[in-house]
């Protein structure tokens, strides 16, 4: 047989052998090959070690009220409305509480906007006032600069006199 370690196509034979899923005839052929093939032997031993290590991992016992909780959820499902039953399967698990929270937030926001429609345009007015103030200050500075230039030119003439 073609060496399973050398040939990728036969590699799953070694995995199946270590999982004891190989039929007896193929297993016998593989065992004969492994007797004189060190890489396959090493592969087999390492894979068996992995298999044994994985065997030590026993899953946790299931809580006693698992079925009861499930049946409660099924009963709730049955009592739920048509629309909810239609939409719910399309929503991710963690999105469901967020959806109700988001809906509540939207209602509160809409109520707030309806009650105070004047409050929104105020920032725009503040911006206009700021721009005007800046223009005025720049004009004032330009005027001061021009005023300051006059004595600087005239001062030496006064001192010379």
């Amino acid at each position: 047989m073609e060496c399973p370690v050398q040939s990728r196509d036969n590699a799953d034979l070694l995995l199946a052998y270590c999982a004891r899923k190989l039929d007896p005839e193929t297993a016998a052929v593989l065992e004969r090959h492994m007797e004189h093939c060190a890489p396959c032997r090493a592969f087999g031993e390492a894979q068996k070690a992995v298999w044994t290590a994985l065997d030590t991992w026993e899953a946790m016992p299931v809580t006693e009220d698992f079925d009861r909780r499930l049946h409660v959820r099924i009963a709730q499902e049955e009592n739920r409305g048509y629309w909810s039953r239609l939409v719910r399967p399309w929503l991710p698990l963690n999105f469901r509480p967020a959806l109700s929270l988001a809906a509540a937030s939207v209602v509160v926001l809409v109520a707030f906007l309806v009650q105070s429609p004047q409050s929104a345009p105020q920032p725009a007015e503040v911006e206009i006032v700021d721009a005007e103030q800046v223009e005025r200050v720049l004009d004032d500075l330009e005027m001061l600069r021009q005023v300051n230039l006059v004595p600087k030119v005239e001062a030496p003439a006064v001192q010379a006199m």
Partner: protein
Amino acid sequence: MVAAAALEPDAELMLRVKDGDAASFALLLERHRIQVIHFVYRMVLNQAVAEELAQEVFLRVYRARLSYEPTAKFTTWLFRIAMHLALNCLRDGRVERSQESLDLETQDTAARQVPDRRPTVEQNLVGQVKLAEVRRAIEALPAKQRAAVLMHKYQEMEYSQIARVLNCSESAVKSLLFRAYETLRARLAHLA
């Protein structure tokens, strides 16, 4: 009649659930509950989240009863739902790692409750270290490789069924398993 006779028992039960037989659903739950919970638990490594997800799996099965058609093996469908939910959970990062130490502690307690084979303190410690290494090695695998290994090792599924659950080809499954076991051999071979 021929088609009905060829149906696997689980598919027959599911068809009865479709017709409104609640007892058949209870039977399906009884048959597959533990396998599903254990698979999801090993995927997400958190007992509480695993049970919550397993409940969602069976709830989805129940919801889909009216449109159920036995086109594939029942367990293929069941584990496809379970894997899908577990992968989503891992992707969303909803699993709390703090549960890990509690799980180990409880498992240790369960082991000590067996009177005939009560392990010594040293054996307990060695066992805990080994278990922690196995869990870390499995956790380090990419999610799809992890799912493939869990189905292959603990559910004893054939390559063809794993391929249908993962929605890929058999050769892709072989490749996934080969790479996953290669990583596990590098990390766990010294435990022998």
